[in-house]
């Protein structure tokens, strides 16, 4: 009995440690965002943002082009997610439901494609877009995002589709549905949560990008929020209160969306990994 209690206490202590390490940086970001200037730059850390201020948020939002950057980010994210979702869903259907020559090769390709460092592809993509007059254009950046969002989405969606028993569709076909009808009435509704999860995950991938936007978008009115966030760091140093407030604002959509769907994403990923 005591031994069991001891083990339990050990597990709980480990859990508290894990929790502290994972969450403290986030706490520190949020707390710093609400602190007054002198409290941020104090040699003795102020653990609580008391007395607090909204000044950092006000100055973050007042940065030039903020609203435009929000709009650009939204436009880019929505376009990328919609295009990749439609294309990936069709491809995932093929990869998850049909046996065809080249299926294994395709699945491996989806993995290998992720090995190519984006930093390296940026060079030829930059040159290609430059030739087409699409650098510093939001359309160009959407196309670039598709390079990594699309393979990832196909992989994840395949996981969701594999997870739905074929018997359900077969039963519908026995009852007189055509194959297309069975897809529409049975498979599609069942995979809809998977579509939502994949969409959110793609959303976050694109939302988080910094490098591609940094290289491809030059003019201030074309920038996305990743660049906006980077603009807090100047040659004169970093304005920590502003960065932390800005970071909090930047993180909120990603965290909220992610919290809503993370369980589904994980189940889709693991199913896709386990089932052939």
């Amino acid at each position: 009995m005591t031994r069991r209690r001891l083990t339990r206490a050990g597990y709980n202590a480990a859990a508290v440690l894990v929790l502290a390490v994972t969450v403290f940086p986030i706490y520190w970001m949020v707390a710093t965002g609400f602190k007054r200037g002198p409290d941020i730059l104090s040699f003795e850390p102020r653990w609580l943002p008391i007395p607090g201020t909204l000044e950092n948020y006000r100055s973050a939002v007042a940065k030039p082009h903020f609203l435009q950057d929000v709009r650009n980010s939204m436009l880019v994210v929505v376009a990328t997610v919609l295009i990749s979702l439609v294309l990936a869903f069709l491809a995932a259907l093929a990869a998850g439901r049909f046996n065809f020559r080249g299926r294994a090769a395709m699945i491996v390709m989806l993995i290998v494609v992720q090995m190519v460092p984006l930093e390296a592809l940026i060079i030829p993509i930059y040159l290609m877009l430059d030739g087409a007059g699409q650098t510093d254009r939001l359309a160009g950046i959407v196309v670039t995002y598709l390079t990594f969002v699309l393979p990832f989405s196909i992989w994840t969606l395949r996981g969701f589709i594999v997870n739905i028993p074929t018997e359900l569709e077969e039963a519908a076909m026995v009852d007189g549905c055509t194959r297309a009808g069975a897809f529409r009435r049975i498979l599609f509704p069942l995979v809809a949560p998977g579509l939502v999860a994949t969409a959110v995950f793609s959303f976050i991938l694109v939302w988080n990008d910094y490098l591609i936007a940094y290289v491809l978008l030059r003019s201030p009115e074309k920038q996305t929020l990743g660049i906006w966030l980077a603009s807090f760091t100047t040659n004169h140093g970093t304005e920590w209160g502003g960065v932390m407030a800005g970071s909090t604002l930047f993180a909120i959509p990603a965290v909220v969306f992610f919290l809503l769907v993370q369980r589904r994403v994980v189940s889709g990923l693991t199913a896709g990994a386990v089932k052939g």
Partner: protein
Amino acid sequence: MSSIQDRRTLTEARPATDLAGRAAQRRRRLAPLVPYALLAPALLVLAAILGFPMYRLVSLSFQRYGLRELFAGQGTWIGLENYRDIVTDSFFWTVVARTMLFAAVAVGLTMVLGTLVALLLRNLGRRMRVAVTAGLVAAWAMPTLTAISIWQWLFDFEFGIVNWLLTWLGVDGFEQHNWFDQPLQGFTVIMIVVVWGALPFVAITLHAGLTQVPRELEEAARVDGAGAFQVFRHVTLPVMKPIFLILATLSTIWDFKVFTQIWVLLNQRPSREYFLLGIWSYSESFGVTRYGKGAAIAVVMVLLLLVVTSFYVRQMVRAVGP
């Protein structure tokens, strides 16, 4: 008009079952094409936006392509010169070794810690498990750039909490200590940021995978006298193998390509001591505008990565099957 009439009489004359048979036959003939038709749009887009740049990357690596060539829109073909330049440069081997070592340590730490956290989650009470999972998810969802900014602040030399904490604990020499003066310490910070960012994904996915391991199997092994480690080695691990494979592959790919963390932590001006292959390729291309050489480094990097992960990928092909 008359032909339509004819056809109608023909159809009416034909037994309905026969007609259905015809349609089914046609469907059967077209059926093998369906998957290709479904794949076509995605593959076409990938071929255009990924295939062409990949081809461009390789061809660029055989060219002299600098600022002048960029304006002219035309590189000079120089064969293997870029590659010869790289391979004969001793710096290349330093960077390769550094990249491999960094990736190995990062993947190792991520996988081991991730497994431990996943096993821990399994042994926690409900409330504690929810709390830890929520913490992991929050860290996972942090945008990379945000996360890097936070860590930069935590390790800030003047006002960073890490220096304060170490000093408070009585460790000497951490007042106003700059972590990035020394590459070894700098890489420690980079490693912490990378592993912190990667751990949640691995831990949560493994935890989800663990729920697929039948408890009875583990209990049976325990009844037969297996210790905790043996149970893990002989029961849990084999069931989890596909998930481990995929996570290890993805982690290797990601950690081999670590870029943004270093780039941002070092204020977009990393010194050569901090170069990994990705950073080196990027700074050759965009820093000193030698796109040809930058491309060659990138190609070498992909080839190395293919070699490193070939074992995993082969295993995965086997798991997915023909």
